[in-house]
């Protein structure tokens, strides 16, 4: 009698007495996860010594962490801009092109997961008014002026000259050391009113709102430093291995959190275990169609985060992880971390201790065959639907 299926799709929720005539039973299932069923697989042979591996992970993390000077540079800029924006919230004065509701820092700088060489901090500005392009332009000019007056007394060296640009997301203010993206969005109930002709893109606005939720979730749940270390490592790996390109920072955050915290004891796993687990999970198809994946904790609807990738991207992401997992288990961690060699290991055959590790082929066929049974097509469609729904909401 579980009416309407697990996902509550169909007419069920639309009000009274509309029975769902089409009952879909699509139960995404969690893939095999060794960490969750270790009791079934007691270790029967001694675990290999992983101190060198752990050391390499930690060393790589240190290499990837931003230097003190980078942090100061970006912090300076962020502080200034935050000050200016806060002033605009409190006392807009004659500035009436838009009204600011709230200013929040988001993104990797805020989370403490910044990777060196990528000195970008993100600030989201929520407008009370609707985000027209003119309003953003005006806000940009206002911020520019205010920054100028704020920095009047400072001696501005050449590298610290600020450049201001406006794009479809908001404003970008940068000097040669750091960059701050002021991303504009509007109140949630204004989102519906957005008109693509006049205002900034609705999807971008929603993504900025989501960024705020994400950073809040992160503060509350993912403050463990292992998670931050793992995120940094994963971000680096994402940039080096093509197959991981479609993974968004938010997916990496959740994946790292999942790999470290989601185990029976709820205690953080050691970094080497968690690092390997990321690849194990991805290899086991955590982000493949039909998998329950990871549910986005910041969306009201149950949205599996990997549905944001196309089916082909999911396949490539999975196969890259699968190849790397095998390389990792044969002792190729230095190549994966980028301490040695290059990224070709994901695509070319390599030999480790006499074991030949060969790359995998894509399983995804384009276009998918329709004759395979309509039910599964529906599954796939449902996935598409789901992601679209969330984007709309």
């Amino acid at each position, binding site marked *: 009698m579980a009416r309407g299926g697990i996902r509550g799709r169909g007419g069920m929720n639309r009000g009274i007495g509309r029975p769902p005539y089409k009952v879909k039973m699509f139960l995404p299932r969690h893939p095999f996860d060794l960490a969750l069923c270790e009791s079934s697989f007691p270790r029967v042979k001694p675990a290999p010594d992983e101190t060198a591996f752990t050391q390499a992970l930690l060393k790589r993390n240190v290499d990837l962490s931003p230097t003190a000077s980078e942090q100061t540079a970006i912090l300076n800029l962020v502080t200034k801009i935050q000050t200016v924006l806060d002033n605009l919230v409190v006392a807009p004065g004659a500035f009436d092109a838009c009204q600011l509701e709230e200013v929040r820092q988001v993104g990797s700088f805020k989370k403490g997961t910044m990777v060196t060489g990528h000195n970008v901090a993100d600030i989201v500005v929520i407008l009370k008014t609707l985000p027209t392009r003119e309003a953003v332009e005006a806000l940009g000019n206002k911020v520019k002026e205010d920054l100028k007056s704020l920095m009047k007394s400072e001696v501005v060296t050449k590298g610290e000259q600020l450049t201001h640009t406006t794009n479809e997301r908001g404003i970008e203010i940068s000097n040669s050391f750091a960059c701050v993206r002021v991303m504009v969005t509007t109140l949630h109930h204004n989102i519906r009113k957005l008109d693509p002709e006049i205002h900034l893109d609705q999807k971008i606005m929603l993504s900025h709102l989501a960024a705020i939720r994400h950073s809040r979730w992160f503060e509350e749940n993912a403050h463990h430093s292992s998670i931050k270390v793992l995120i940094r490592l994963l971000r680096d790996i994402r940039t080096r291995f093509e197959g991981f390109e479609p993974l968004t920072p938010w997916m990496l955050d959740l994946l790292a959190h999942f790999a470290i915290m989601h185990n*029976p004891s709820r205690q953080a796993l050691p970094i080497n275990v968690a690092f390997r687990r990321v690849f194990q999970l991805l290899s086991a198809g955590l982000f493949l169609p039909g998998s329950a994946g990871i549910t986005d904790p910041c969306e009201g609807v*149950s949205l599996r985060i990997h549905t944001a990738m196309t089916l082909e991207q999911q396949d490539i992401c999975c196969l890259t992880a699968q190849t790397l997992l095998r390389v990792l288990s044969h002792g190729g961690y230095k190549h994966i971390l980028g301490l040695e060699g290059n990224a070709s290991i994901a695509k070319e055959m390599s030999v480790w201790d006499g074991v030949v590790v060969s790359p995998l082929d894509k399983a995804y066929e384009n276009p998918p065959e329709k004759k395979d049974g309509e039910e599964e097509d529906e599954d796939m469609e449902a996935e598409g639907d789901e992601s679209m729904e969330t984007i709309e909401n």
Partner: protein
Amino acid sequence: MATNNYFGFTHGGTQYSATATGAAYQAGQAGYAVAAPATAAAAAATYGTQRAAGYDTAYQAAAATQGTYAAVGTGATPAYEYGYGQTAAAGYTGGYDQTAAAAAAKPATYATTYTQRAAGQPQAQAAAAAAAAAKPAQYTGTYQANATGYQATYAQPAAQTTIAAQPTTQAKQANSTTTYSGYDAALYSAATMYVAQQGGAAQQKSGGWQGYKKGGIGAKNMRTKAPPKPQQLHYCDVCKISCAGPQTYREHLEGQKHKKREAATKMAASVAVTNQNRAGNSLRCQLCDVTCTGNDAYAAHIRGAKHQKVVLLHTKLGKPIPPQEPEIIGGPRNGDSKDDEVDEQPEPDIQPVGQDYIEEIKSDDGKVISFNCKLCECRFNDPNAKEMHMKGRRHRLQYKKKVNPDLVVDVKPSLRQRKIQEEKMRRAALREEFWARRHYNMPEDEDDRMYWEDRRRYEEEYMEMCRRGNLGPYPRGRPPFPGGAPPYFQGGMPMARRTESSDDRHVMARHSEIYPKEEELQSIQRIVSHTERALKTVSDQLAESTKPKEGQAQQPPTPQQPVAAPAANAANATPAAAKPVEAPAVVPKPESENKSAEQQQQQPKEDGRDNQLFSFQQDRDANRILKGVMRVGHLAKGLLLRGDTNVELVVLCADKPTLALLRKVVDLLPPALKQVAPENTYTVTINAAEAGLTVVGDGLTVLVQLTSPIMREQEAASGGLDRDVLARGKCLQALAALRHTKWFQARALGLHSCVVIIRILRDLCQRVPTWSPLSSWAMELLAEKVISSVPGQVQLSPGDALRRVMEAVASGLLLPGGPGLGDPCEKDSPDAASGLSAQQREDLTCSAQYALRLIAYRQIYKVLGMEPLPTQQKVFRRDRSARKRRRSGGEQADSESDSGKMVKTEGTETTTETPVK
């Protein structure tokens, strides 16, 4: 003698029956849910927000889930703040848009007065209203608080009209009394305005009167009929234009414009009425008879070319030019100086908005030639026009719509709008009534009421759950209600039936392809049965030859065989063992199986078809050398595939099996076989290398191995003192095979879809060279562990089970550095897959990884080595094995319906469990 625990199985059994896995995991989950309440609170906030987004849902939410709102409010996360703002906006402003906006613009409209009247406490409430009027922000609050009362009364038009008359009297009373104080202006104007807008008879009269008077004056002044004779200057007095010549003048007089104008002049009263129906503060240029909506418009008109032209014309003609002062057309309050103040107040207040959206269009030399408003998509050349446009209502509305939704625009609801709003209110009230009835009284239908009551309770619980910290798992905000469909739909709704996924269908189709045919099974059954019975004869003969006297003494066999009885019990107890599909060696129909099991209570069984030990012993003749025979391997596990020709039996000996014994058995067996099955021809050959013999017939080979438990016990002391003893390794293997069979029967047979998957994997290992290094035992262990380790003890469908096995291997379970497969049937559980080389492990993993993705991308047929199945219906017909199972026997039917139930409960379980994740 207890053979059962002899094989060291009890040890393995206890280890395996540790189902604490799931429990531990679930406990962990609960911990997690508690650990993250903050997130959930945020999520709950979002949830509430989304619910409130639509107007009607907001209504229901407010009615049903007051508690939630309050609770979330205390949470007061910033996210919630917008959420709340939104709620308020959607719930109130959305519904009462015009009224609310108007109320905010003009501090006291009829709305407040009205509420106050309805409440029936004029003095106190009036004061409150006045205070509210002073602070618009607070005013909103008051408005919300009163909203329900307001709406309730408002919904009844009859009451409205009766009250409509009252404000005037009330206002008059207020006027007359001395309490008339600071709030007077607002209140008074509100009252009068309300009356004005009500369009009551009295108001109509007064307005009409004023308009009439004015009209009269106008007519007297200059709206005399057009002069019959045109002078040189062809001047039309009505339209205030001059024409170039008589021809055009005539045309003008006949033209529509002129005629309209003339008609309008004649009906001066109507002009007044229309004027007065418009804004309260129109200005009229008496010279041109043009009505302007505001000071600015009037100024613009005066400056404008048209007015200048008329002035010029009038001076030329020597006509009287009325004073520049505009004639104020302000409705009934025209003469009232107070009203003028009030009315003119808001006018200068309007600030131009949206300067940024007006583009200046410049000519080539940089001069501004025109303006373009991007919000309203209109152009004007005059800077004044631009100013006015920016103050104008249309522009402001556009600005409100496109830029700042908070902008207050003076809205005068037209008759139509008001009607729409009224209708909305009425519907809301109706709905409320409906719900109230649903929830509390009027049990039209007891079932019906119960259903809704349950549903409400469920929803409340759900909200409670959400608040406590579980994420709302349901996409559309409303939780599914487990109580089923509302009663009146119950008849027509199809029951939710678990459908097989395409993966399941493929796996089952492939399974029926590899599953041995009936004839194959029967012939295997025959040869095995014959061999077993012949072995028993041999055993009897051997026993007689050693102890002929004792053998005779024990002629009457006791009905309760110590070993056979527990075996029969076991056959009864494990229903899985009795399933024909999963235990293919059992040929007879289940009914007869049951019967035979019962019969076995009385008589000794004649062969080992229940896959338990077939004991040769009769009573306690301890000296018998061949104690019993047992089926092992694929035969006993029910893993035979189509085309399999080799089956295995193990004979347990009392002592170490020696070559001499083996030879003796080989000698005695052919006659015994002849005796058991005279019509079949079997060849018996000795196979000392395998510590046994082979029986070949019908193209099938039965390997009979001799072994003894003593071989194991002796381990340390053996030292090879007896060269005649059969190869120890082989004997131990045979013992292990016995244990594996026991383990399999205890663990894998009862596990949902496990045997099917193991058969599929066996087929895979035979087909695909990469998989062939994986030993059968390791593969069985792997499949069982993977399938049994599903968190929450969920039963997997065959397709899911296969995918899960592939996931496990793909995630590197077998790779070097993995945990290994502990063998429960050996001491210290060594790795059952230790024979695999690193390269083999690598290749296995690689293959599984590809297979996993093939499954995920709907190409499971490639993994299974079959053709893709066409459509679902056809497959259903083709899938005979499933149907066969359903048809056969009572016990099967039971287990089938059991599994069906499990599916259902599983569904609901997931419903309740999902929020935990």
